[in-house]
């Protein structure tokens, strides 16, 4: 399950950012103390916020909201 979550989050980010998206997922995970290879459902909320914030910097508010929404949806 956890590896599956990593893959899905990487897919969401790389759809917006290309290969840099994958790096951003790892970087935010490590900053939050989450193992990027082992993302758990309970990590999703914080991670969605963190990645949304980064996306704001890289792609503007619309993209940021989209990324945050899509990652939070993975918890369901």
């Amino acid at each position, binding site marked *: 399950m956890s590896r599956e979550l990593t893959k899905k989050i990487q897919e969401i980010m790389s759809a917006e*950012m290309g290969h840099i998206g994958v790096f951003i997922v790892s970087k935010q995970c*490590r900053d939050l103390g989450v193992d990027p290879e082992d993302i758990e459902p309970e990590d999703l909320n914080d991670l969605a916020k963190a990645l949304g914030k980064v996306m704001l910097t890289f792609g503007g508010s619309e993209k940021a909201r989209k990324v945050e929404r899509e990652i939070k949806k993975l918890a369901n």
Partner: protein
Amino acid sequence: MKLIDRKKEIEALENYFANARDGSGKLVLLSGEVGVGKAALAFELMKRHEKDALCIYTSVQKTKTIPYAPFLNNIDEWKGYVKTLDLPDRLRRELFSTTSISEFNVGLQERVFALFEQAFKEISENRAMIFFIDNIHWADTGTLALLSHMAESIKNMRVLIIGAYTSNVLQNDKFSDFTEFLTGLMMKDMLTSIHVENFWREDVAEFIRTFLDVESIDNAFVEKMQKASGGNPLFLDYAMDLFIKEKVVRRRKRLVISLYEINIPSSFEEIITRMLNLLPKKATTILRYASVQGTTFLMDVLKGQLKMREEEFRRYISLLEKEGMIYPVDEERYGFIHNRARDIIYETCVKKKELHREIADLIEILHEKDINTHYLELADHYFKAGAWKWASRYAAKAGDENLKLYSLGDAIFAYNMALTAQKMEKEEDTTSTGKLLLLLGNTYLLSGRWEEASASVHEAIDIFEKEGDTAFIINAYIALGDIERERSNLNEASDWYQKAMDLAREELDNRAIAKAARGLGYISWRWGNYESALSMLAEAEKISKELKDPIYGIVMVDTGNVHSALGDLKTPRKYYLKGVEALQESRNLWDLARAYNNLGDSYLQAKEWDMALEFFEKCSEIAKKAGLNNFFGWSLFNSAEALNAKGDLDAALTYLDRALPILEAMKDINGLSGVYRDYGLVHLKNGDFKKAETNLLKAMKYAKEADNTDMILDTKTDMAELYIKKGEKEKAKEILQPAMQSAKEMDARKRLERIEELLKKVK
């Protein structure tokens, strides 16, 4: 533009400035969509501190000018604040000497960075500084590299650098230099940004009240303006300005006419169209002609098209400047203040084809002396005019110029344009198409786009074979060998090099013999046949030395690699340094990056971590500047190995996280084996044996796929070390004994020493 309700943002900037004034300088980025008021924020901060800080404003132009232009534009404003009086002149000398500015100069960057660093240090000793650069998303790679460098350098200076950029333009430009710049800052935990949002309804009301200088405003009007603008301050600013020009509203009055009679524009396009209708006809004609040139336009060309009297022309230009439509870019050019305005005006133009042709012809006549700086512009205008032959000719020249500068993305764009134009031409010159395809293939190869490289070169070979052009066929075979070599398809690479060698010997083409021998030598090294590698490389060295062929530098690096594989620590460095010297001279950045990477690797072997990091950093800088993605990835994971050895595991992981997606995207299996090996080593060090094993196994899988004997041996030895640490000595022994045999067969002395050390532990 008025600064409305930006308390939170201005407070954040004030805090950053207060810290900077106390000696903790920083680079802060302002992001947000076009017209949201990023610059207004920075200007407000500068206004507040004009007495206690030196405030410098500069802006990046969309049209490429000279590298580092944003930093250079304002030397006169700060030169009075530096102690070293000749410093500004030294900077100018470095940057404006014709050779250094137009061609890639390896040492230039270091000298320029050091001079700017010194300048900022001296200024900050004198007084605090706010340095604001607008539109940094358009900056050239040099400026971005300098900004990254300065972000680190100003940490202990009284300097606040503010960079503003439009965040929504990045969406369409996933691999741009700017995105890479942001990522680089993030890697070093130096990415500080403030995102500026559009206005809420209350802000719109306050904006309109402030604009009109009134105390209250009709709610319904605010509502409509909010709806039309989406809260975008630029839209509001332009719309209010339009209403004043249309005499619908007046300052210090509320609405002059009834709210229901106001025709609120529904789009930015409508605002511009209505503004154009208010201008004199000749002024709109000027704008239309200018828009065909682009977002910036050459004044002499524009004048040549309009055939207007000088005085009249100047008058209308001043009017348009006053109306906020255009601005002077430099001595030659003006530009549209807003690109969207230019696009809207361009759409209204008729007879565009004729106008593009006229512009191209005028540029050729008026800019004969500096025509090389206009190649792409000319190609673009001739292309849009349907003059395919000329479009192709200039696009190819633009490709060559960009390739020379290692601006690979631009070179690929130009060559593709040349090919498209050539195919549109009724009587296509096939030889010339073949040559262009070969050039394009080699440029794709440099960018690490191997599949596209292979497709282009194969297409070129088809043409050359039909034409029977042997010299080009040999070169194309060598190019295919290089492509397959980079893809780690060593058998295929060897076949192509051999085919090239056979044909070259038949044709007595010595240069081609040297190139093919070098290719075959490289493959032998990768296969662990060091004797054969040294013999092929010696042949390449002899010929290239005699012919003074630039391949000599490459051969030196390859020879160093063989000696390194043989376990020698010092001899490889001698070869690498010889290689560096020759490669700098021939401006071969690809192999120069490789030489620095390998020098770093030789220090890794010697356990001199800081030296290793220094050379990997050099490799990374060149790779980034020249767009060599593979070397950028390699320098990252090699740096990770040094950082891991130094005990900085977190930094090592960050570097590996960054390298992995780059090399995955390129399908660089050799690089991937290196990345996973380093992940394994980091986890081995932090005691996570399960992860160490998983990653080392992945490394082994890729190393086998790449047929990389050195890497297979190294990873096997790492696995053995892992099992020893886990207490599984038998497993370790099972690996080490055959590994020792392989090392002996390959005569890999250094590797053999390590295996013997480990074997002692399992006995």
